């Protein structure tokens, strides 16, 4: 039976919980590298945050970046950044210019590129507005996290909320770290994307935890918490992969179309952050949030007792028979209990009817 078939049928037996130290080490390393990158390399903030003037033109005549730079430098606007964007586009970024200077630069660029000055996309930002957008977003974020923590504590349990938030932190730091390492520009689109990642990461974690909670309710303390985590993870693995794939498909299409076909920069910036975020969001809910929760719960008196009891009976395995759900769970569990809680091999059970 191939891995694919196992995956497809939810029959995989990956030991997510048992290998937790490995995942924690990996996550820890990623977070450390990201933090270092953030401290030493810094984020490249776009004009919306740092203030400045940005002029964007189509470049249908294919004028080279060097020529544009020469014109920009010649106009005496001080330090500037000239970039090719998308397929056919030129972006010039300078310190904030006065309206007059800006108009002058726009018309000289229009002359050079053979474009209509009215076709320019321009933006002039004082240094404070971007800060306000970010500030409001951060405030919204904090309130959001609080509300979600309360909701998850009520709907699931507070340790789940804690583990979900840790996973979330991991995703945010990692995404920011990639931006710092690669030197992508941070724009308002990035802020939005990060907020999405946040929602997505939580969403994914909630689905996983919901399954864990359900399994705990159904099988109670016939297994160690770690075993239940493992079982739940393997059950939802296919869903996680499917969902991530299905989410990544439109985002990937956005990324591809946005950056290579049409040169819509906002779309590209957005898609990039999302792509990274969704990928890490899936990773963190499987490899970080769930094992963390398992570890945390295993320290509870109740689950320590369960583990001791099962260990005395020699059945405290990291796996539980995970295919038995629904109406048959009770009888199946009884069978399992009678047979010393030995996990049934999935193949056997399949032909069981």
């Amino acid at each position: 039976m191939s891995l694919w078939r196992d995956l497809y049928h939810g029959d995989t037996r990956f030991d997510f919980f048992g290998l937790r130290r490995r995942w924690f080490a990996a996550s820890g390393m990623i977070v450390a590298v990201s933090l270092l990158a953030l401290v030493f390399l810094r984020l490249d903030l776009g004009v919306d945050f740092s203030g400045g003037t940005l002029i964007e033109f189509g470049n249908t005549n294919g004028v080279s970046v060097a020529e544009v730079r020469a014109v920009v430098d010649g106009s005496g606007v001080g330090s500037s950044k000239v970039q090719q964007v998308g397929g056919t586009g030129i972006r010039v970024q300078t310190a904030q210019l006065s309206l007059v200077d800006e108009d002058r630069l726009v018309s000289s660029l229009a002359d050079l590129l053979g474009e209509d000055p009215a076709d320019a996309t321009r933006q002039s930002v004082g240094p404070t507005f971007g800060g306000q957008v970010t500030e409001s977003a951060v405030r919204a974020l904090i309130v959001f996290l609080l509300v979600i923590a309360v909701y998850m504590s009520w709907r699931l349990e507070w340790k789940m909320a804690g583990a979900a938030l840790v996973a979330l932190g991991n995703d945010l730091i990692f995404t920011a770290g990639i931006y710092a390492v690669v030197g992508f520009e941070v724009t308002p689109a990035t802020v939005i994307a990060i907020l999405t990642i946040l929602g997505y990461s939580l969403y994914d974690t909630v689905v996983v935890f919901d399954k864990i909670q359900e399994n705990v309710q159904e099988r109670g303390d016939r297994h160690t918490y770690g075993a239940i985590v493992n079982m739940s993870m393997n059950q939802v693995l296919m869903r996680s992969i499917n969902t991530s794939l299905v989410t990544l498909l439109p985002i990937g299409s956005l990324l591809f179309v946005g950056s290579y076909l049409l040169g819509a920069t906002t779309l590209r910036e957005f898609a990039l952050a999302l792509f990274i975020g969704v990928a890490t969001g899936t990773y963190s809910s499987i490899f970080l949030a769930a094992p963390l929760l398992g570890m945390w719960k295993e320290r509870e008196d109740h689950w320590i007792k369960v583990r001791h009891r099962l260990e005395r009976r020699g059945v405290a395995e990291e796996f539980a028979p995970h295919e038995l759900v629904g109406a048959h769970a009770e009888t199946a569990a009884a069978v399992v209990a009678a047979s010393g809680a030995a996990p049934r091999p999935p193949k056997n059970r399949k032909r069981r009817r």
Partner: protein
Amino acid sequence: MSRRGAFITLTATLVIVFGLLALTQLTGTTPRLGLDLQGGFSVVLEAPAGTDPDVLDQAVEIMRRRIEALGDVQEPEISVVGDRTVEVQLPGVTDRERALAAVGTTGQLEFRPVLAVSPIPGLSPVFLNVEVPDDGSTTTTTTVAGATTTAATTTSVAGTTSTTEAGGTTTTTTAPPVDPWEGVILPEGVTRCDIVDQPGCLDPVSGLTRVTVPGLEAFLATDFATGGGIAYHTGPARVLGSDLKGAQAQFQGSATGAITGQWIVVLDFTEEGGAKFAAVTAELAGFAPGDPRRQFAIVLDGTVQSAPSVANDVSPETGISGGSAVITLGGSDDQESAASNLSVVLRYGSLPVAFEQSSVESISATLGSESLRAGLIAGLGGLLLVAVAMILYYRALGLINVIGLSVFGSLMMVIFSALGAWQGVTLTLAGVAGVIVAVGITADSYVVYYERIKEEVHGGRSLRSAVDHAFTRAIRTILTADTVSFAGAVLLFFLAIGSVKGFALALLIATMCDLFVAVFFTRPAVALLAQTRLGDGGRFSIRGATGLPTEGKQ
């Protein structure tokens, strides 16, 4: 879910959703596109910290009126965001300078004592402020005075028949050899714009102040466009708009035995403003009744709106004290509109806020439409990929998913069209991104449900019972997960500003649509499908997707 119930629910959902879509298409309602998708002009203005929110709202109101005066703007969007930021979006505007002027300049309201009134309509009093030379050339002065006087009579005659706008100009040109500025004494600090161009300077042609400076004397006129055009020489501003708390037009009845009632405007000053007003009216009351200097001019943006004189019974010792005052206009019907206009000017004319333009952005229409095209292509491409993946995974169930996504898409289209038409909500690029993300969330609801079906079937349930049972289980998960998305979207919508808001709204609507589709489409559709041949037979069926052989074959 019974077969009948499922069938009715499914049909009703499809009819309602696609019916609404057809309705929007027939009425030509499409989502309103944001600035970044259709091009236009946007300014973000920032008021100083600690500005009163009411004041911001007033500022927005004035800007709206000014922008409407621009004429060529289709559906401007002006909103207060955060606690001290005003965002102005003008779709389709290409004239940057005019748009900036409309929103950027603050309307400055001033109360200035009148020093002199020009006897000649349209002639700036500055030209009468002529030094009388001692060297015997009195004739020159008289000729000047004579010329202007005769010219004035002609102007006023001409004024009744033709335009009076260039009144000042014609006056001066009727006596070509005489320079109207000859011998004119300018008040301290006031210059001629053609000699020293500085704030408060006088226009070389009209002799009026172009931009008033509160601390300087000014030569101002009532609005030329409305005919009239009485010109005043005024002192420095004594009371500013920010000293005024409110103004209200009222009809005062004839309680005191007068024959008719009168329209009045009641002014309400701040504590400081009241003191200033009392001081200035006390000074003015020192002039004899009938003296033009008993008047004070109410000036908005350099135009005299009204110049009431201080009532005869006001004591020169105290002035008009008590923090409020009444301007009496008269009893006739046209005084009613005059009173309400004046109160509006007094109330809203002044922005005691100096806005700073913190972001000015213009997006070319080409780029806007290109972004829209990219967004659409990406969206459709993404949907297609999702459809292919879902059919590969879930076979017949995948087909339901594809139809479900089109139901979802139609619903979003309808909602955004309706919101655009009724609420003026625009769909921005960030919103499009939100929708694309929502496609992922919607697809996930299917995945959760379908994986559940697989599990239940593996657990040994019959297909029909598995489908039902899986839904009750899956909807729990979907609800929990959607609540998280929903809460996030709501909070972002209310707390965040700028493009984040548009994103949040799209996500919010999409999450609700997701639940709607799951309950009213997916559930009955899958329930029905489970009872057909596509449910239980062959590799393409639901059972085929679960990887278990058909019940019959066992």
